[in-house]
C-alpha cells in the first residue's frame, strides 16, 4: 500500500527566546486505508503532531507529504483546499457550529467548495446520518444534542467529502464508555467500508488495543510503534 502521510525529520519548537522543543526529528508514515492510534502521556506532543499532519500547524523544520505531495510551499488557500478535499477532522470538543442543525453541520465541508448540495450528496448525508445513528436528532441544533450524538455528527461531518484521511484528536475523551464504544465502532465501520485512513489520538487503552497500529509518543519522540 502507498503511504498517505509521510513525515521526514519533523521538528517543532515553541518560543522565541527560550525554545522548548516539543517534537524531535520525527520520521513516520501511515499507509492508506490503515486504522492507527497515537498514544502517549499528556504533554508528550501528540496533538502537536496531529495538527502538523493536518496542516493546521507548521513544523519548525522537516517535510510533510500528503498523498506524495509536499506541503511546505503551499499557500494558505492551497492548504485550505487540500484540507477540505483530503482530510476530515474530529476534535475532542466536538465543535459543531451551534447556529446550525446536525445535518447542516454535516454538509458544511461540502458547501465550502460547492454552491449547492447535489441530490447524491444529500442522500450521502442521509446515509451518513444513518451510519452514525443520529436520525432522531438530525434536525436539532448542536446545543440540543448529547455529547455522544454531537461527536457522531462530527464524524459524519468529517466524512461528507469522502476524504481519504480522517484525523481524530481524542474523539471519545469526553464520552462515557458506552458512547466511546459506539463512536469507535462507527469509525471502524467507515474504515472497513470506505477504506478511509484513520489516525486517532486516544487515552483509552481499550480503543487503542483495537486499532491496527499503535504509535506511542514519548517526550516528542516515537517510543513504541506496534503493528498487528
Amino acid at each position, binding site marked *: 500500500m502507498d503511504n498517505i502521510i509521510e513525515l521526514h525529520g519533523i521538528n517543532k519548537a515553541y518560543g522565541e527566546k527560550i525554545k522548548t522543543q516539543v517534537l524531535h526529528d520525527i520520521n513516520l508514515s501511515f499507509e492508506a486505508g490503515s486504522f492507527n492510534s497515537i498514544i502517549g502521556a499528556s504533554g508528550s506532543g501528540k*496533538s502537536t503532531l496531529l*495538527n502538523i499532519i*493536518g496542516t*493546521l*500547524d507548521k513544523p519548525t523544520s522537516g517535510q510533510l507529504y500528503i498523498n506524495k505531495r509536499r506541503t511546505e510551499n503551499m499557500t*494558505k*488557500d492551497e492548504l*485550505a*483546499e*487540500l*484540507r*477540505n*478535499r483530503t482530510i476530515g*477532522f474530529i*476534535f*475532542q*470538543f466536538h*465543535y459543531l*457550529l*451551534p*447556529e*446550525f442543525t446536525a445535518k447542516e453541520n454535516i454538509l*458544511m*465541508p461540502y*458547501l*465550502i*467548495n460547492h*454552491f*449547492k448540495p447535489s441530490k447524491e450528496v444529500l442522500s450521502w448525508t442521509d446515509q451518513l446520518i444513518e451510519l452514525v445513528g443520529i436520525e432522531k436528532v438530525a434536525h436539532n441544533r448542536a446545543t440540543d444534542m448529547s455529547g455522544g450524538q454531537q461527536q457522531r455528527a462530527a464524524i459524519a*461531518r468529517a466524512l461528507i467529502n469522502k476524504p481519504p484521511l480522517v484525523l481524530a*484528536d481524542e474523539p471519545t475523551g469526553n464520552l462515557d464508555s458506552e458512547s466511546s464504544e459506539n463512536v469507535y465502532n462507527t469509525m471502524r465501520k467507515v474504515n472497513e467500508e470506505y477504506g478511509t485512513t484513520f489516525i486517532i489520538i486516544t487515552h483509552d487503552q481499550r480503543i487503542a488495543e483495537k486499532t491496527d497500529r499503535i504509535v506511542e509518543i514519548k517526550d516528542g519522540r516515537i517510543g513504541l510503534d506496534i503493528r498487528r
Partner: protein
Amino acid sequence: MRLAFKIALRFLLSGKNQTILIALGIAVGVAVQVFIGSLIQGLQLSLVEKTIGNSSQITITSGSGDKIIRSWERVVYEAGISSKAIRNISPSVDASAFLEYEDGSEPILVRGFRLADADDIYGISGGLYDGKLPQRKDEAIIGRDLAEKLEVEINERVNLVTPLGGVVKLMVTGLYDLGVSAVNKSWLITNLETAQDIFGLDDGITSVEMQVDEVFNADNLARQVNNTLSDSRLIVDNWKDQNKQLLSGLSGQSLSSYMIQVFVLVAVLLGISSVLAISVVQRSKQLGILKAMGIKDRDASLIFVFQGLLLGVIGGVLGILLGIGLLLMFTAFAVNPDGSPVVPVFISYPFLVVSGLFAISAAVFASLIPARLSSRLNPIEVIKNG
C-alpha cells in the same frame, strides 16, 4: 460566497438581541440623518422660495447706452427656446418717477408689464385686495404702503412726474399687497403701453424677466439663455449672482448639517465595528473550525462583510421609515396657529436613497476591521485552546 452569506445570516439570527440592538443603532443614526437633512432642506427651500419665489430669477437687460431693448419680442422668443426649464417670461419697462401728493412728492418705480405674464411671476392678481387690474391705458395700481402714505383710494387720479418734468395723470384702479414692503412702498404697476408712452420708449422695453424650474440651477440656465440670445449686447443676470450672501448663508447651514450627519454616521460606524469585532471573538470557535475544514480566509472575512451589509440594509430601511415618521410627526405637531407647519418639511426621495446607501456602505466599511480579524484568525489557536 453563498456559504459565507448563509453563515452570516445564521450568525445574525442566532444572536438576535445583539442584531436587533445594532440594527436599531443604525436605524436611529439614519433616522437622525434623514430628519435633520430633510428639515434643513425644507428650511432652505422655503427660505429661497420666500426670497425669490415671487421675483425674477433671470433678468435680461440692455447693455447699450440708452438701456433700451428694442426688438424685445425676439428676445422673449429666444429666451423661451433656450431651455425647457424656463417659464413665466415677462417683458417690462422700469423707470423712476415721482408721485405728487398734497404735501410733496414720493419717489416711485414705474413698472410697466404685460400683466398676464407678470402675474405669473409676482402674483399680482392674488395680491390685489381692492379694485381691479389696470385694463386701459393710463390706468395703474399701487401698493398698500404707498396708498396709505398718499391717502389714495381706488378710482382716484394721481399725478406722475417723470424725471424730465413731464406730468401724466393716471387712474388708480386697484391696490395690492405683494407681501414685500419695498414693493408695496414704491412700485406703481401699469401696463406696457402706458409705461412706454410715459417714458417715450416707442416700442422698446428695459428688461425681460423670467423664472426657472430649478431655482438652484438658475446660473447655468442664465448662461444657456445668454448663449441663445442673438444680440450679444444684452446682459443676462440671475438671482444667484445677485444674492451671494444668502447663498453663502445657505451653504454654511448645509455644511453644518453635513457635519452633524457625518458625525452621526461615524458614531454608527464605530458602533457596528466594535460589536462585530466582539462577535468575531465570540465566534472564533466556529471560525477556527470552518478554517480547519478548509474555508478560505477571504470567505471567512466575507461572513462579516455580509453581516455588515445585512445590518446596514435592515438598519437603513428601518432608519428611513423612522425618519419619515419623525418628519410626519413634526409637521403634524409643530404647527403655526393657522395650522401650517412651522418648518415646511421637504422629503426628497433621492436624499432618502442616498442616506440609505450611505448607511449601507458605512456598515460594510465598518465590517472591514472585523472581517480582517476573521481573515487573520489562525485555526490552531482555537483548536488547541478548546
